[in-house]
Structure formats: structure tokens, C-alpha cells
């Protein structure tokens, strides 16, 4: 029982890590909105989460352990899940940041990050309730 709750918590924590990484990626895009030649990047969240949690919690840990050995790559998601954005309107200076899209993605990711946080809080509360003895009410 507690094992199953732990697995579920692990899934949510992987999702939270990926969300925070995507947040950082979007922040980088917004920061480089005026840099000539910068190409906006975004994460394939579905694929990244599937790989991070893929075949049970072991896959995520293996991926993290593999990335920890590489210098400058402390994240859960590898380079493989980063995609280059195709600009809807091309820019003469080679910059492909679409500020409207980045802001929308940023807001979307913030809300989903918070949702994941609430799921984790809910799980913790459920576990704590399950641990309580009947006398404690």
C-alpha cells in the first residue's frame, strides 16, 4: 500500500522537476527575446515525462544518474527532448522568439506546476491520514 503511494508520489515529483525545467527554458526564451540569432527552444513534455517515468521509477532514476555524470547537465530531461520552435513570423535578425507564445506557455506552465504541487500535497495528506490511529480522529 505505502509502496503504491510512493510510486505515485515519484511520478508527481518527476513531473514537477520537468515542469521546473520547462519553466527555466521558457524564461531563457523570454530573456533572449532581443538577442540576434537566438533560436527559441521548448520541451516535448509528454515524451520527456514518459521517458522519465517510463518503465517504473527505475527508468527515471537511471536517466538522472546518467545525466548527473555529464558536466553542466543536472536536469532530468536530456537534450533529446528539446525542440526548436518554428517562428510564425520570420525575423530579419534570425531571432525566433514569439513573445506571445512564450508568455502563454509560461502562464500555462506556471499553472500546471502549481497543480502538480497540489497533487503532491494531496498525496502527502492522504498518507498522513492513513497513518493516523483511530483514536487521533
Amino acid at each position: 500500500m505505502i509502496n503504491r503511494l510512493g510510486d505515485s508520489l515519484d511520478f508527481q515529483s518527476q513531473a514537477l522537476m520537468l515542469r521546473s525545467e520547462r519553466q527555466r527554458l521558457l524564461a531563457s526564451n523570454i530573456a533572449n527575446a532581443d538577442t540576434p540569432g537566438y533560436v527559441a527552444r521548448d520541451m516535448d513534455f509528454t515524451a520527456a515525462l514518459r521517458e522519465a517515468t517510463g518503465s517504473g521509477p527505475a527508468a527515471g532514476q537511471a536517466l538522472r544518474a546518467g545525466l548527473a555524470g555529464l558536466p553542466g547537465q543536472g536536469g532530468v530531461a536530456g537534450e533529446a527532448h528539446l525542440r526548436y520552435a518554428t517562428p510564425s513570423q520570420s525575423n530579419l535578425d534570425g531571432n525566433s522568439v514569439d513573445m506571445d507564445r512564450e508568455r502563454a506557455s509560461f502562464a500555462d506552465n506556471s499553472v500546471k506546476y502549481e497543480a502538480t504541487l497540489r497533487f503532491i500535497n494531496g498525496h502527502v495528506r492522504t498518507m498522513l491520514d492513513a497513518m493516523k490511529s483511530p483514536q487521533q480522529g
Partner: protein
Amino acid sequence: MSMFRIFDVSGSAVSAQSQRLNVVASNLANADTVAGPDGKAYKARHVVFQTELMGELGAAGVRVSSVGEDNTAGRRVHDPKHPGADAEGYVTYSNVNTVEEMVNMISASRSYQNNLEVMNAAKSLLLKTLQMGQS
């Protein structure tokens, strides 16, 4: 925790944009500067942004790689009565394009605001993360 990098990324962007705003301010202030005795008027300056990788994968900040001078010729106005006029009666003003600088200013201040908002969002998310499991 990768979210802490957002402060580095957005912070670098904010400081780069404020430097851009500074350069715009100095250009606008010198928009009507005339050439001195050496015949050289103020030249408009422009910042050049460059992406700066910040250690972790996908964390890309900004830095001002250089501040370049605009080398186009300055405005020449025929005004023989002006104390700064040359032998032919022409006064050379600086080559600042005021309209361009105003557009630059608006763009810089918008980007500044954007990055500040990103930092605020990251801050509130991190504060909520700190309270994980307590509610």
C-alpha cells in the same frame, strides 16, 4: 533545483536591458549635440546582445557583448550664424535618429518588464514549493 537558475537568466536579461536603456538615454540626450572644434559630433551608440549559457542545459542568459558606434555621417545643417559652423557655414549635428531611439526605449522597457514578471512568477512558485506537504 533548476528553478533557481531562472533568477540568473532573467537577472542577466534585466541588467542587459537596463544597459540598453542607459545607452538609449545617452543617445537621446546627445541628439542635438553639435560638432566641436575637431569637427566630430557625438556618434550614436548601440548595444549588441549575446546569448550566455549559464551552466545547466537550456539555461540561456543574455549579456551585452559590446557597445558599438554608429558610423553614419551626422546631420549637416546650413547655418552660418551658428558658432559651431565650419568654413562653408555648415553645422554638423550628431547622427542620432530620435525616432529609432524612442522605439528602442519602448522595446527595452517592455523586455525589462517581461523579465521582471518572469522572476516574480518563479519566486511565487518557489515559495509555494517551500510549503510542500505543510498544508
